[in-house]
């Protein structure tokens, strides 16, 4: 069965390594914080100026001065710090943040990503996404395999305005884990009960399929 959004987040959480600083984008990526594997310590960076972001506050404890990049009220964990936006993006551009997880509208087989603009329809701005994808060593895209119209978002070439070029290394969807290497998608894992044929049929970009594709494993 295909994963739900929480399943995608849970699978991405398996990629976390001890000691990493991690930036989570808005949407599915935010959910990754709920599934940190046992024994792993990571710290979350929010580009509006927080290291050591914690969970949402309890009702009545919301602080208007303490929000994440999605403008949601949040808390901090012990050892947290605050800083200005220039320092925040110094952390990001300077590659002090080890992992960035973000959503996308399209990803192409050479690692291009489009996630900020649909010409004539949605022009909200790129926020910090262009800075994040231009510099992060390790970018995982969390998204659905197809858009609402049923068209594949895993493409030979992006059709929407780009956010960054050749930067995405890994994509986790409700169906599969894909790696991007040598200008192609490589099928690494399939969601429990999802067939390789279904993944192939829903992937427009070039997909390398090994003889054996292991199933995702969740504890």
């Amino acid at each position, binding site marked *: 069965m295909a994963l739900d959004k929480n399943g995608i987040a849970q699978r991405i959480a398996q990629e976390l390594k001890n000691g990493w600083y991690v930036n989570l984008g808005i949407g599915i990526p935010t959910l990754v914080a709920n599934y940190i594997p046992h024994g792993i310590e990571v710290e979350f960076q929010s580009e509006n100026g927080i290291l050591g972001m914690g*969970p*949402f506050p309890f009702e009545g404890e919301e602080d208007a001065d303490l929000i994440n990049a999605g403008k949601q009220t949040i808390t901090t964990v012990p050892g947290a710090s605050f800083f200005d*936006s220039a320092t925040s993006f110094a952390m*990001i551009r300077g590659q002090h943040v080890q992992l960035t997880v973000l959503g996308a509208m399209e990803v192409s087989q050479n690692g291009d990503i489009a996630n900020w603009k649909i010409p004539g329809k949605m022009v909200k701005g790129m926020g910090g996404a262009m800075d994040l994808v231009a510099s992060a060593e390790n970018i995982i895209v969390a998204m659905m395999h197809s858009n609402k119209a049923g068209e594949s978002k895993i493409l030979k070439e992006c059709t929407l305005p780009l956010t960054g070029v050749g930067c995405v290394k890994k994509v986790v969807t409700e169906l599969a884990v894909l790696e991007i290497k040598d200008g192609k998608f490589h099928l690494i894992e399939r969601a429990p009960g999802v067939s390789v044929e279904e993944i192939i049929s829903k992937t427009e970009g070039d997909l390398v399929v090994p003889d054996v594709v292991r199933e995702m494993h969740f504890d």
Partner: protein
Amino acid sequence: MNKVVKNVEEALVGIEDDMTLMLGGFGLCGIPENSIGQLVKLGTKNLTCISNNAGVDDYGIGLMLQAKQVKKMISSYVGENDEFERQMLSGELEVDLIPQGSLAERCRAGGAGIPAFFTPAGYGTEVAEGKEVRVFNGKPHILESALNADFAIVKAWKGDTEGNLIYKAAARNFNPMMAMAGKITVAEVEELVPAGTLDPNQIHTPGIFVQRIFQGEKFEKRIEQRTVRKNA
């Protein structure tokens, strides 16, 4: 040097039509809300506003958009505002969208006397159109220029009569860089204290960057996305 002005009216004296303003804040967090209220009252027109966001329909810079005071917005994300979208799509409002880190650094550069810098952000995208590209360490970068403003209007938690500022939590965001980049920088603070009260070790923005400071009359501090977890 005493930077204190009586009130918001005095703080914004000299702001005229066609000027460029920087306004601190991220979303509605850390915005100079008293000054925005006064700008709406003044009715100054044809303004270019540099601010990470454009407020919401009925709060923050959204109020200035409703009053059609803004000619051009320079921002990184403007998604929470229907009136903004309407004015942009109809061509009434010029919009320059900039990657958030580049926006922060361009303000910082403006205040720091650095006319331009190279960044990898935006390379290969429409942001790079018309900009010089140069390769450093095997990676392409684009040239981004500094930003300055006639007035920078920032909001801090505490400030003293010398103009030294301390911000609270995530309300710091763009305020420190914008404070550096204004020809005249106005700081509105929640609490204004005599010089010598704040610990010099804890100052975020040194008073040299601030020309006028006042204590805001009231702060609504609206929350854009109230999110909570259930009590255990």
